[in-house]
């Protein structure tokens, strides 16, 4: 057959065949198979907790701490690193159709270097630890106070596996205990916390917009403040709310839910919020305004050496709740305007509350500095070195809020 073929055709074919074979062989040699690892051969790490070495250890647990340990040529036993691992239960055939229940386990060790601790932890695992699906990182306040944030997060920023969108949270208690928490749905607590924090657009009490690994890396590189969502555990109740502000690796302070909500109004990133105020006619009773959408603009103004900011907010929403008594039908124009003014007042109060909180903490936790840099670069150059400590705590903020109440009329 081959003899019958035109020698030219054969030559062309040979060349092409050799070419294709070379491409395949070279690419195999260059890149083939090196990171092939079947999904079931990987041990999913779902959450990481970092504590101070002996945090929360009861005297009867001495033996355990001896095992969760290793000999370390350099450094001290500063941190305790805990990993939440996913234990796969094989699904029982196809007939039943039910998935095996996922369970998790927790392993810990103590040391100073995160990578060294991870290496030691392989002694507690049957499969290679795999970090691409890490959902949350919980850091205890004590661990940060001990040596700052940098030694803790450096590994998170360098690791090729941990994603930028991994959530980082802070707790005032023991971080490992939070990973031990069992959500009622049966899902791993790492995923529970991440999902809960993901609702930040609906829940103005959690920050969520600047609290992932990527933002920490960014803030770190720009020498700016770092925000972390706060999580607290008491018995078997877990709650997200408020946030912590860090600067230069040091914890500056916690900020409560009200200030967190105000901070979100400042940067205009919330999707919905409840704004409450007292009923105009019956004091002690509450009316709640439900926010639908808003437009927010924050602009810096410079007059001579004076810097001030103008915050202009337009909000649309409806009355979500009105405990004032008989008058629950709001249809009259003057009534509406009165309510709108009250809402605006409440929003203004909220914003100024968080603004003053930031000023008292001497940290620009919002975007004031960035706005100044963008709109008035010359002024920024002058003040940037003493911005947080001297300039920011003194600048005034003029807030104007315009509220429109929609969907008026009878309730259903």
């Amino acid at each position, binding site marked *: 057959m081959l003899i019958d073929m035109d020698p030219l055709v054969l030559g062309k074919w040979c060349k092409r065949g050799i070419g294709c074979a070379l491409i395949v062989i070279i*690419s195999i040699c260059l890149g083939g198979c090196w*990171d092939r*690892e079947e*999904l*079931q051969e*990987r041990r999913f790490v779902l959450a990481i907790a970092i504590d101070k070495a002996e945090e929360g250890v009861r005297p009867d647990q001495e033996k355990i701490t001896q095992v969760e340990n290793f000999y370390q040529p350099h450094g001290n036993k500063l941190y305790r690193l805990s990993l939440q691992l996913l234990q796969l*239960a*094989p699904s029982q055939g*196809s*007939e039943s159709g039910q998935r095996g229940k996922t369970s998790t386990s927790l392993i810990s060790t103590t040391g100073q270097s995160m990578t060294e601790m991870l290496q030691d932890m392989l002694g507690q695992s049957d499969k290679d630890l795999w970090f691409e699906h890490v959902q949350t990182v919980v850091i205890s306040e004590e661990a940060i106070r001990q040596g700052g944030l940098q030694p803790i997060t450096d590994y998170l920023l360098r690791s090729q596996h941990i994603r930028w969108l991994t959530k980082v949270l802070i707790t005032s208690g023991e971080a490992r205990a939070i990973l031990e928490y069992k959500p009622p749905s049966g899902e791993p607590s790492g995923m529970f916390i991440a999902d809960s924090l993901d609702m930040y657009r609906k829940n103005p009490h959690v920050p969520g917009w600047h609290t992932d690994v990527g933002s920490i890396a960014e803030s770190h590189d720009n020498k700016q403040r770092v925000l972390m969502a706060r999580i607290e555990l008491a018995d078997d109740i877990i709650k997200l709310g408020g946030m912590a502000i860090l600067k230069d690796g040091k914890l500056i302070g916690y900020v409560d839910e009200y200030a967190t909500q105000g901070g979100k109004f400042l940067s205009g990133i919330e999707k919905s919020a409840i704004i409450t105020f007292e009923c105009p006619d019956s004091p002690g009773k509450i009316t709640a305004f439900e926010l639908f959408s808003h437009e927010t603009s924050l602009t810096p103004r410079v007059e001579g050496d004076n810097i001030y900011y103008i915050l202009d907010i337009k909000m649309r929403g409806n009355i979500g709740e009105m405990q004032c008594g008989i008058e629950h039908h709001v249809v009259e124009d003057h009534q509406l305007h009165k309510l709108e003014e009250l809402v605006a007042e409440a929003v203004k109060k909220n914003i100024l509350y968080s603004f003053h909180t930031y000023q008292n903490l001497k940290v620009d936790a919002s975007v004031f500095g960035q706005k100044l840099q963008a709109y008035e670069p010359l002024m920024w150059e002058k003040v940037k070195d003493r911005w947080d400590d001297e300039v920011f705590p003194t600048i005034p903020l003029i807030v104007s809020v315009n509220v429109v109440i929609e969907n008026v009329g009878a309730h259903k």
Partner: protein
Amino acid sequence: MGKVKCRKIMKLSADMPEASFDQAKKKLTELQKLTTKSAKLGEDIGQIIAQMRQVAAPSNEPFIFTSKLAENEKLMRVVLRDCGDIEFRAFDAEGHKALLIYLEGMADSEHLERSVLKPLMSQTAPTNANTTKLSNLFTDMKVVAEHILGAASVTVLTKASAAIDAVMTGNAILLIDGLNDVLSIAVVKYTKRNISEPNNEYVLQGPNEAFNETMTDNIVLIRRRTRDTNLKVRILQLGERTKTSTAVLYIANLVKPGLVEEVERRLGLIKIDKILSSAPIEEFLVDHPWSPYPQTQTTERPDKVLAALYEGRMSIIVDGTPVAIIVPCTYNVLMQTSDDYTIQPVVAILVRLTRNIAAFLAIYLPAIYVAVVSYHPGMLPTTMAISVAELRARTPFPSFLEAIMMEVLLELFQEAIVRLPQKLAGAASMIGAFIIGTTVVQAGLINPLLVVVIATTAIASYSMPSYTFSMALRWTRVPMLILASILGLYGVILGVLAVTIHLCSLRSFGESYLGGMINFDSLADWKDSMARLPTTLLKTRPKEFGAQDQTRVGDSDGQSGS
């Protein structure tokens, strides 16, 4: 002593050399040689006689006809010796001896009786008034044909080869003593299949006539659908021994200039003894016989052929095959079905989109699965990664092996169902469904997700309008799988590049296989390739086939409505 005795008993040939096995074998072969030699000699003698008979015959003719019937008959008998189905019917026509030669079963004997034998033999009857006058007609074959015979199609032949061809195609030839011409009478009639519904290209709403094995019938099916005189039919004979009739169809004032010549040139280059179906012709026609992708479109629907002809393409119909070949062929035309034009355009657009996605899935889905599961599980959403890992926790094999096993099962399964008689195919598919669907998964050999992936792939490839194209997709799947298992997504992307480059560089009579779709010059062709606009908007022919007249209404030469 005992040994010697033993030897004597065992070997008879020791005493009688002529009884040995070797000797007998030798004798037998000698005898065989002798018989073959004598058979050859007989044949040679026959040939020598034929050669002696032929008086200055040209080199490509077996002999030339003489005016003596007896001699002509002998010559014909030599050529047609040992063909038991040839009928030699000698009769007397007005004192002239005549001979009718035809192939029994292929020629209509009733028709011969009625239109040849009767008129000729009745010339001898004394009741006929013009007897003497008519007897003078036997001086020229043409006159005989014009005045006596009642057959519709009659040709005068002078060459012996043409006469033999005529007999072999089923015509009857008439020889009359005293004339050195012969008359070929078209009386071909043999049993053939009726026009039936298409087996593979059934259409829900639309014409459902399909080609049969007879070329003339197939041409009629096309002719009947148009009254256009520009529809030209050229008939060629291919296959040096079988001399299979092959028709080349095109619309004279539409077809791309040069295409007809190129097709005929390529057909002319075919040097092969037999053409039993259209498939070998396709392989001679294409530029890249090693590509798995079909480079000619085949159809069993006459309306599809006509639609293609009016796009400026050409069709080849081979006698004996119920399928017409259409060239040039591109990815676009393989993705179209007749049903697209019977359903609502908006629906058709969605259907075509689905079909294109299906083509992609049929090649790449298992590869993407293997790449993601073995190399990049980080790409999956966490909940999905966990559930996939759960499903795979029980399976002992790497995903590549698993996928290959499943592919093998699927291929076995498809092949078995195609080969089995229809009654058994149902049983086979039941077994297959049980094995693949449940048992393999229960046994823990293959995880259910992979079954979903492979089944999706199989269904996607079944949804291709062209069977040959879906076979090509099946073929491409395996190298993609191997690439994915070696290099992960990087390999899949390499594969995508390789397939795309191959398809773009593949040419079918000058038209790029895939290139037309991504060529900005012919972006207007999307109206009937990626999308399917309402017929009111399909006013121009596809640019990629280079029809001479681009507008679909009227014609450049003034003939309207063609």
